[in-house]
């Protein structure tokens, strides 16, 4: 796994260099005074959720006549490096996910020193003030987790399993902590490795076989919900399923009654608002949020309201 990381890192560094070279050359050609804003995330490449964020960011960039640079890396040091990279490009603003606050602190300071405004979004709800960011757009993951815990209590769950696809990512930890805080029954966590679906399936199967008392499973990412349903079916467990976030498949599963609910943080809005807040700040000196976060969630999508959401989910923006 170590080597895999290394190789991925190599790949990303190579692609980053290629990307930034291309972007630099195109920036030189731009004549009008268009703002350039960098969006930096800890996304795994090729993840639906992050794609929705990016679509929101693109929408805002288009509307505000902004040139958007989108970069991502799921590892702490590489994400920090990306910040250094765009600071050296002298971008006009940075929207970033503060997924690894400590590892990114130095790079954030460098951006401050270069007088580049930074808005946090999606991850780092507990740390954005300490990092002295301009604002924060997202769902407070602790609140979202706590809401899930209450929901589980309300449904009478006794023993819940939390499926975490990225061990060590703070926003996922916060969700878990939120659930742990309010949920009254037995709480357990299971780590899986990203999008390797057979691994997700067999690990969840193993866990459900190991502890047959589990009566509710919560996935921390929606792409995993169908696979976990498979696993629940395969071992003949009676466990119900809820998930964080939303995908078109999750919407279908809710409509079919197989998935109880999804907790939506509206990623499109996160991407959109993060860019828009920077634009407002650059153009009009605005700071939004009144010292607090701009909350985009949590909102539960369940059978009662899923049909409204469905048409937007199909277009890939919810």
């Amino acid at each position, binding site marked *: 796994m170590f080597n895999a990381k290394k190789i991925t890192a190599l790949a990303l560094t190579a692609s980053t260099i290629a990307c930034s070279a291309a972007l630099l050359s195109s920036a030189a050609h731009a004549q009008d005074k268009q703002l350039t804003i960098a969006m930096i995330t800890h996304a795994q*490449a090729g993840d639906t959720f992050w794609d929705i964020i990016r679509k929101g960011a693109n929408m805002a960039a288009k509307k505000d006549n902004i040139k958007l640079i989108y970069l991502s890396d799921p590892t702490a040091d590489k994400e920090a490096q990306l910040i250094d990279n765009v600071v050296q490009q002298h971008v006009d603003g940075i929207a970033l996910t503060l997924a690894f606050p400590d590892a990114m602190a130095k790079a954030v300071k460098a951006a401050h020193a270069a007088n580049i405004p930074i808005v946090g979004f999606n991850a780092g709800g507990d740390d954005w003030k300490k990092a002295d960011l301009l604002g924060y757009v997202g769902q407070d993951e602790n609140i979202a987790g706590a809401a899930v815990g209450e929901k589980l209590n309300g449904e009478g769950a006794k023993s819940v399993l939390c499926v975490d696809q990225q061990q060590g990512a703070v926003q996922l930890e916060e969700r878990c902590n939120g659930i742990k805080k309010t949920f009254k029954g037995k709480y357990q966590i299971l780590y899986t490795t990203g999008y390797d*679906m057979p691994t997700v399936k067999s690990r969840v199967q193993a866990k459900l076989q190991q502890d047959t008392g589990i009566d509710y499973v919560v996935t921390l990412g929606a792409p995993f919900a169908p696979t976990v349903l498979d696993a629940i079916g395969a071992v003949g467990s009676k466990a119900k399923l809820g998930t964080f976030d939303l995908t078109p498949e999750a919407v279908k599963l809710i409509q079919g009654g197989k998935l109880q609910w999804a907790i939506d943080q509206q990623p499109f809005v996160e991407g959109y608002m993060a860019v828009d807040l920077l634009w407002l700040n650059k153009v009009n000196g605005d700071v939004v949020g009144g010292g607090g976060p701009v909350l985009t969630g949590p909102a539960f999508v369940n059978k009662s309201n899923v049909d409204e959401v469905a048409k937007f989910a199909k277009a890939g923006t919810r």
Partner: protein
Amino acid sequence: MTEKADTVPLRQQYQPQSYWKQILKRPEAGALGGAILVFVFFWLMAPPFRQFSAFTTVLYQASTIGIPAVAVALLMIGGEFDLSAGVAVTASSLAASMFTTQLFGNLWVGAFCALIFALAIGALNGWLLIRTKLHSFLVTLGTFLMLQGLNIAITKLVTGNVATRDISGMPGFDSLQTIFASNIMVGHAQISIAIVYWLLFVALATWVLLRTKVGNWIFAVGGQGESARAVGVPVKQVKIGLFMLVGFSCWFLSMHLLFSYNTVQSGAGIGNELLYIAASVVGGCLMTGGYGSAVGSALGAFIFGMTTEGVIYADWDPDWFQFFVGAMLLLATVVNTWIRARAMKGK
């Protein structure tokens, strides 16, 4: 007895080895020891591990590593690496999905196109290797990174999203799902058909390696490439063929994944190439080529499956998960090497 004293003593008398010695000298003997050790360990430590349904869960995890690992083992015996195998699996499922949803509307055609695509990647790897004379590690690192980028870029370009559309409503889905992703229920345990194919491929590869001319060629090419060429082994063809075999195995697994999970996230598969290589090496393949076995790769995958699932069955602290997996793998490999060293020392 007196006759023997009269004859000229032989330089080195050939003694038929005992049956056990012969088994112990096979490349996969060490891995078998490691597998038994890990199995017994979790059997004692984790009561849920003892159920039959737990065994099938382990086998399923193992089969999804084992199917490409068989081909990778053959390739490694032939003296080469393939780092592109992990993302090639994702690339093949993406190809099948996109050929179907965008062009042909029928999954059979899409699956066939994906097969051609996967074989072409293999052929390209082999061809680049022969033409550039670079180490396969570098060549396939290049194709690995290129494929990884292509997976995401093309998916985004074609579908506008980074995951493919759900294919479960497309024509041909039911028949192909039966072939690639059906489950057989035995009591309360679900047995995936992937396990059956895996064992079949292992048997087939073992037969080819040990009983056919092509098998001899593979060993020769990996052990002593130049000498093999000198005695008339078609080295280039064997190597390109082996890369295409890896391509085929990636395609096969990709079909299973596509028809089991209906959509593909374009970022999946990264890192799995190392699991395939690890399974082969744990199973007795030498990194330098010319030595190894197909059964070994299966045992390697089985050890990995048992370890990752076993840690869950044992209900150890999940924060320590990767540590336990690593430690168990190391233990299994050490036992494995120890057995092999002992076997080689004796006659």
